[in-house]
């Protein structure tokens, strides 16, 4: 099952991955991270491992497993 891992504390909150996920599987977390922004989290749905979120992420904090 493909999945992604997000390093929460390095997220700056640009939310480009949310816009670019074709299946809308990434959500905004309710709690703040170490940088003081609400980071993105993987909702755990049916990920296809297309890596669109990782390609667009400007902080390279998303790792894609397939």
């Amino acid at each position, binding site marked *: 099952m493909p*999945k992604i891992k997000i390093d929460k504390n*390095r997220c*700056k*909150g*640009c*939310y*480009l991955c949310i816009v*670019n996920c074709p299946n809308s599987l990434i959500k905004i977390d309710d709690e703040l991270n170490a940088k003081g*922004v609400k980071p993105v989290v993987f909702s755990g749905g049916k990920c296809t*491992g297309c*890596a*669109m979120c*990782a*390609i*667009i992420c*400007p*902080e*390279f904090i*998303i*790792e*894609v*497993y*397939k």
Partner: protein
Amino acid sequence: MKKKNRKKINRSASKRAGKKVEEKLVFSRPQSLRDVDMHYCAGCGHSIVHRLVCEVIDEFKIRDRVIGIAPVGCAVIAYDYWDFDVSEAAHGRTPAVATAIKRVRPDNIVFTYQGDGDLAAIGTAEIIHAANRGENITVIFVNNGVYGMTGGQMAPTTLAGQKTSTSIAGRSLRNDGYPLKMLEMLAVLPGVRYLERVSVHSAQEIFRAKRAISKALGVVKSY
């Protein structure tokens, strides 16, 4: 054809039997990019271009041959992020430094990384003369249309009507003139080999930008 079909059946059978499929890392940070936090604003395309440069360098294994030249501007501390040889240059004089390095070390791949304040404002003379001499260097020009580092002031490449902190009602063509079209200016020079304008706003465009960078660095034939 028969063989292919048999393979497919075998794989699905192992899945059904509940065999654990090993997870494989398909996307992560390239090796020549240091594992540090970047100082860029949230959502800035600079770091994506940094990553594309590193990916091309890793894929074609030219890390020990490449020399980058960092500009003055937002990307001024690019040498903190890139894990290969990088030099710093005075504001706008990056093509001049690249010319010198390429002439002294002709076997190395020399590229400059410049923003629009560096290349299109203070360094216009340097880039035009380096292009006109036909220097064997690559220039990666990151144009966002404003001076991001100093607070979003109007740049020569700001589009007509674009709002910045020094053109609150939008850039007026009457007062400030037309935006500078660097690519069209350089395209008429006979010394220029390859020019391409790309964007990094979507995943598809990022693929296109990566192809353009690999062509520009000379690792893929551009003709």
